[in-house]
C-alpha cells in the first residue's frame, strides 16, 4: 500500500516536473520569438514612418506657403493607419511650436477626413484608452462639430479623472467661448481634482494674451463666486487670474475684498485677494487693505504688508508725476 502511494506521488511529481519544464522551454522559445518579431516589426515601422515624414514635411511646408492643396494630402494618405498617424504626429508637432496664420492652416490640415473619422470613432468607443487617444487628437483641432462637442461634454462627467481631464483639454481647443466655459466650470466643480490640473485648464481656457473678453470676465466672476467651489480652488483661480493679468477682473476682485461674505474671509482666499490688488497695482484698494494689517492670520498680515509697500509707492509715484 505504501509502495503504491509512493508510486502515485512520484508519478504526479514527475508530471509536475515535466509540465514545468515544458512550460519553461515554451516560455524561453516564446521570448525569443516575441523579441525577434517585435523588434523586426518595430524597426520596419520606424523606417516607414521616417520615410513618410520625410515625404510629408516638404509638402506641408509648401502647403503653408499656399502652393499645395489639402486634397493632395488626402490622396497621399488615404486610410492607411501608419501613414496618417505619421502625418498627424508631424502636424501636431508643428502646431505645438508655431502660432499665427500658419498654426491656423495646420489645424485645418489636421482635419483631414480620414483622421477625423478615425478619431471620432475612438470617441464613441467603450475603451477609456481609445477615448483618451481621440481627445488628444481633438485638442489640436478647431472643434466646431456639434456631435463631437456633445460627446466631449458628456465625458466631462466621467468617473475617470484622466478621461475627464482629456475631454476638458479637448474642449479648450474650441474657439467658441461657450464650450470652454462649460468645460472649465464642470471640471472646476469636480471633486478630487488637483489644483494643478485646474490651473493647467485655466491656461488653456485663456485665449489671447493681448485682448480681453468681457464675456470671459463675467464667466470667471460667476465661477469664482460660485458656492460649490472649495476655498482652495477659489484661491487658485484668483491667483491665476491675477497672474495672467485679467484687468477686467480688477473691479470684482476689489469688491470681493471689501465684501463681508464669509466665503471671501477664508485666509487663503483673503490672501489671494489682497495679493491680487498688489499685482494689479490697484491703489484704490489701499485703504481696505490697511484694515488687514492687524488681522489674526499671519499669512494675511504678511501679504497685506507687502501689498501696502507696493501700493504706497504707486501712490507716491502718482503724486510725483502729477
Amino acid at each position, binding site marked *: 500500500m505504501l509502495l503504491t502511494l509512493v508510486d502515485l506521488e512520484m508519478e504526479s511529481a514527475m508530471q509536475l516536473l515535466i509540465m514545468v519544464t515544458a512550460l519553461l522551454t515554451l516560455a524561453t522559445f516564446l521570448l525569443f520569438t516575441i523579441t525577434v518579431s517585435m523588434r523586426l516589426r518595430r524597426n520596419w515601422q520606424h523606417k516607414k514612418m521616417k520615410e513618410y515624414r520625410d515625404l510629408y*514635411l516638404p509638402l506641408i511646408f509648401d502647403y503653408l506657403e499656399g502652393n499645395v492643396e489639402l486634397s493632395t494630402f488626402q490622396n497621399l494618405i488615404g486610410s492607411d493607419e501608419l501613414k496618417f498617424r505619421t502625418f498627424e504626429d508631424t502636424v501636431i508637432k*508643428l502646431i*505645438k511650436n*508655431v502660432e499665427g*496664420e500658419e498654426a491656423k492652416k495646420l489645424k485645418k490640415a489636421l482635419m483631414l477626413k480620414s483622421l477625423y473619422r478615425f478619431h471620432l470613432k475612438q470617441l464613441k468607443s467603450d475603451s477609456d484608452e481609445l477615448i483618451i487617444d481621440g481627445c488628444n487628437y481633438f485638442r489640436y483641432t478647431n472643434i466646431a462639430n456639434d456631435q463631437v462637442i456633445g460627446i466631449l461634454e458628456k465625458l466631462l462627467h466621467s468617473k475617470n479623472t484622466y478621461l475627464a481631464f482629456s475631454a476638458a483639454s479637448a474642449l479648450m481647443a474650441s474657439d467658441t467661448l461657450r464650450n470652454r466655459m462649460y468645460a472649465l466650470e464642470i471640471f472646476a466643480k469636480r471633486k478630487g481634482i488637483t489644483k494643478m490640473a485646474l490651473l493647467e485648464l485655466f491656461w488653456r481656457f485663456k485665449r489671447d494674451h493681448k485682448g480681453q473678453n468681457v464675456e470671459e470676465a463675467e464667466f470667471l466672476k460667476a465661477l469664482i463666486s460660485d458656492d460649490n467651489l472649495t476655498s482652495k480652488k477659489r484661491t487658485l483661480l484668483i491667483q491665476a487670474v491675477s497672474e495672467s493679468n485679467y484687468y477686467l477682473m480688477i473691479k470684482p476682485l476689489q469688491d470681493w475684498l471689501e465684501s463681508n461674505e464669509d466665503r471671501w474671509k477664508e485666509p487663503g482666499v483673503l490672501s489671494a485677494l489682497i495679493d491680487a490688488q498688489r499685482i494689479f497695482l490697484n491703489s484704490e484698494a489701499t485703504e481696505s487693505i490697511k484694515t488687514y494689517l492687524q488681522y489674526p492670520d499671519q499669512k494675511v498680515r504678511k501679504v497685506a504688508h507687502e501689498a501696502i509697500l507696493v501700493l504706497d509707492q504707486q501712490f507716491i509715484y502718482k503724486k510725483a508725476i502729477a
Partner: protein
Amino acid sequence: MDQNRSTVLLIEDDPVISKLIEFKLKRNNYKFALRENGTSGLEAIKELRPDLVILDIMLPSVNGLEILRKIREDKELDNIRVIMLSASMKMKDKKQAFVLGAHDYIVKPFETEELIMRVKKSIED
C-alpha cells in the same frame, strides 16, 4: 555670391522643428547647419564659425543655458551671436538667458516670420 550668404547653426534635437526652421532659413537664402545635441553643437561652433546660433533650451541631455554659458566662457567663441529658443515666457527665464549672454530670445510657439526677422536683425547688428 555664395560668400555673402550668412551661416546659421541650429542646435535642436527635434527633427520636425529643425526641418521647419531649415526650410524657412533656406527660403530666405541663409546657409544652414544642424546639430542635435549640446556637445556636437559646441564643436560645430568652433569648426564652422557660424554668423548666428539658434539654441534650444530643452536639449536631450543638458540644459541649453549650460551650453550658452560654455560658449561665453570660451574666449574664442565669445562673440558668436546666440538666439535662445524656449518654451517659457516667464520674465525670470528671459532675464537669465540675457544675463548669460543671449542676444535674443524667442518663445515657443512662435511665428516663423518673426523668427526670420529676428535672425535678420541679429546678423545685421
